[in-house]
């Protein structure tokens, strides 16, 4: 990289906060997806002024700039696709203010999601969005991706919990949007920025709502001998207006993978389980447990087990939240999709996924947010086998096309990033994408901030498929 730029960055941040050696950069060329993108340098700002300085340097040297939290993203959103400066917010990790009376908190972007909830638990509060990676992922990353999680079924996704933020625009201006009170006057800029995948600005401060912890939480494990019965149960719960706090499905393949790793107490001989949280007032939770149990049993649940204490509950959830790590032990690489379908189409979609798996020669696993209709089909593959990799991508694409045809979408919570940019035309016309691009260009006129994300490039699909992927031959193995 430009030695002069490197020198300026070191002067601005101190050389401890700038990485530029090849072996150091290696760690930052991947995230939780199968994508790779190597930055020219990695910087760790410690305050907003430094972020402003970094943006100014990126502009002066016309160098791409990408923001990053913990790097747990699942779509390549925080990868430096075209090189440049990767700005990692892990050292801006202070909780600036907790306002229990108004149920608000102000945080720096590098605060880890579960650290905020832990810091306010003694006040009977929590930060409701709970991605599976919540012990590592940052709130800044959650804001960029509009992250979800199991409990967003009842509590909403990140955007429903963010009220305002301080942003450094790609042009270097520092602005505050939204506020701590509700209904900030004017256009809902906060609503636009949340989920914009780091393409409109670098967030340096976030004001979030805190949610009261429920008085009671009951965790149920409904065990099924047929996948179909589990999906029918979810469809009926939805149709009957029974909204649990969370409703996750894990199929037999995933259960066995998790059980071997976590020993969460999952039944390894079953076809599927639903992991359901019911919460609220004691009286309300008790009534809902009964209703949920009735629906499960009406759809042939072999057993509906209630966690007897918080220890058992935590263990069941630990299994779910570490599911992807467990899968990683079985397969050197896997491709996870994030399609969403109307909940009425769940049974048909799971059947279709199985057929697609057979067609391409895979046993596709399913661990997903069933209550939201947010699928995470897992296609395990061996990256050393080029043909297998091609088939894994083809199978995943076919699943996504089915989701879109069913009235759904290509990503429910992982983001478009690098991974799904080529799929955007499935959802939006050229004119619709052009309008979104114009919005991006209004904020990011030189295109230096997080380039080549979200929007499809002009290249043909085949060409993009051949891009280097993590785990592919000659690349770093993650097995």
């Amino acid at each position, binding site marked *: 990289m430009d030695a002069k730029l490197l020198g300026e960055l070191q002067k601005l941040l101190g050389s401890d906060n700038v990485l530029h050696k090849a072996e150091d950069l290696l760690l930052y060329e991947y995230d939780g997806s199968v994508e790779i993108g190597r930055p020219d340098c990695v910087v760790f700002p410690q305050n907003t002024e430094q972020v402003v300085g970094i943006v100014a340097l990126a502009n002066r040297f016309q160098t791409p700039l990408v923001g990053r939290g913990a790097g747990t993203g699942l779509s390549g959103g925080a990868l430096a696709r075209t090189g440049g400066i990767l700005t990692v917010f892990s050292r801006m990790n202070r909780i600036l203010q907790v306002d229990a009376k108004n149920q608000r908190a102000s945080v720096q972007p590098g605060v880890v999601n579960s650290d905020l909830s832990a810091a306010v638990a003694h006040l009977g509060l929590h930060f409701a969005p709970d991605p599976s990676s919540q012990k590592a992922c940052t709130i800044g990353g959650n804001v960029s991706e509009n992250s979800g999680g199991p409990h967003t079924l009842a509590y909403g996704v990140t955007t429903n919990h963010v009220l305002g933020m301080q942003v450094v625009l790609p042009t270097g201006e520092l602005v505050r949007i939204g*506020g701590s009170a509700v209904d900030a006057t004017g256009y809902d800029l906060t609503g*636009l920025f949340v989920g914009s995948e780091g393409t409109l600005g670098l967030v340096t401060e976030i004001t979030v709502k805190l949610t009261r912890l429920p008085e009671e939480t009951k965790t149920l494990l409904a065990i099924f001998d047929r996948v179909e019965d589990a999906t029918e149960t979810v469809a009926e719960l939805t149709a009957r207006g029974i909204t649990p706090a969370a409703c996750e499905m894990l199929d037999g393949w995933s259960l066995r993978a998790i059980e071997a790793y976590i020993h969460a107490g999952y039944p390894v001989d079953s076809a599927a389980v639903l992991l359901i949280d019911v919460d609220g007032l004691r009286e309300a939770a008790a009534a809902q447990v009964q209703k949920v149990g009735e629906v499960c049993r009406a759809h042939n649940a072999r057993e509906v087990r209630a966690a007897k204490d918080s220890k058992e509950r935590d263990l069941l959830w630990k299994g779910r939240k570490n599911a992807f790590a467990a899968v990683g032990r079985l397969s050197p690489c896997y491709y996870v999709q994030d399609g969403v*379908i109307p909940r009425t189409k769940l049974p048909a979609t799971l059947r279709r996924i199985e057929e697609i798996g057979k067609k391409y020669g895979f046993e596709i696993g399913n661990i997903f947010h069933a209550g939201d209709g947010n699928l995470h089909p897992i296609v395990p593959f061996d990256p050393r086998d080029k043909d297998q990799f091609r088939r894994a991508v083809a199978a995943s694409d076919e699943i996504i096309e089915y989701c879109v045809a069913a*009235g*759904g979408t290509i990503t429910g919570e992982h983001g478009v990033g690098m991974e799904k940019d080529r799929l955007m035309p499935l959802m939006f016309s050229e004119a619709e994408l052009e309008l979104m691009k114009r919005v991006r260009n209004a904020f990011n006129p030189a295109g230096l901030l997080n380039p080549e994300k979200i929007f499809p490039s002009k290249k043909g699909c085949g060409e993009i498929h051949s891009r280097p992927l993590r785990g592919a031959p000659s690349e770093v193995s993650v097995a």
Partner: protein
Amino acid sequence: MNSPARGAISRLEGIVSGGALTSDPEKLVGYTIDGLTPSAAVRPSSPEEIVEIVKFAGSENLAIVACGARTKIGIGLAPRHYDIAIDATRLNRVVAYDPGDLTLSVEPGVPICNLQRSLNEHGQFLPHGAPFMTRATVGGTFASGVEGPLRQMYGTARDFVLGMEFVTGDGVAGKSGGRVVKNVTGYDLHKLLIGSLGTLGIITKINLRTFPSPQPVRGFAAHFAHAADALACRDSVATSALRPITFDILSSHVADLFSGDAARRIEPNELPDGLLSRNGWTLATGFSGNDDVLDRCENELRAMAESAGGTHFARIGDDKTPSAVAAAFGRVREFVPIALESSAACTIMKLSVLPEHLEHAIAAAMHAADDHSLPWAAVARGIGVIYVALLPDARDEKFMKCVAGATNRIHEDCARLGGNSTIPWCPGEWKSALNVWGPERPDLPLMRKIKSVFDPQGILAPGRFVGGI
């Protein structure tokens, strides 16, 4: 109307289907905004027709204001220009309703109460208890950004609008979001359109999440001598396990408004006896759940009200008297229309502050009104929103000055509390003398950028929005 516009209107007739355009001055009066009457009103029957009209308007440099039932057309500043009204009431189809998925796709002209009736047949509803319920359309409700008491539990439009289709100022058919309940594909442009008063795009389709109707419901009223006492009760509830679906605090003057002649013209017009305190503040709140839940809510709420100094506590209604509950909450929801109906000069401010600052904000509004000898009434929602209706006796210069003085002071006090304040409703001819959109915000330049992307020529409701956008 200037003559170039007249010539353009006759050319416009050529591009819309028969009978969809009117330039009859008598009919156009109904589309007047703040004294400005358009040269034509068009009632398109398809989004494609809207694209054509917008492109035509762009080529002729004519300004458009989109509208539905026009119940909230007075919100915002007067448009700088206004040539064509696009009346969306013929776009009134429910495009798709999937009760099993609790999702819905509708055109903007669907009357919101008709929609609620169809959803109700499936035990579902749209948790948008927005005012003007009996006449308002879905499109106008979302484009104007109004909210209602149910936000306590369900949030606002930004929380349950799943996606939108719209036509931008340069005639692009845009889209964002989708029809499923979880989606992060592309920018959430629909969030920008909510509350944009038609300055960014003309909404042609709205995808929504529906919810199971909360049943059974029990409503409660508690009376307090002071707003501070009612707010102390709010704080107790907020730190308890109770989860009310609505939580509103009403000033004593609301009782007079609700029982006045004007209020009888706004539905629902039956008010349960004894609901409102006439010499203090009333907390009106509702809960849903089974009998065990409701009994517990009732007992705990009563205790909280008593320890906060409550002077009276009563059940407004329950599952045996659902119409009483609906009537009471309907009245609270319709506070704005009732206040507007009660005085020709009614001016309504909307404030939003942190819940902790509700007490100060209410006191500031009260003192500003009293110091300017203006009768007033206020409704405050527990989540931190206050509507203050100033009710002058006459719509004249003298009262305009009083209202300007009072509202300026309230703006200042609210800004000091870190809140937001606007004047969504006031007599049209007062708008130039009042600070309709409140103190200038630091993010206004970003809003201008957004406007220039969606409407580069500035033909969509020019001037109505914040900062004259």
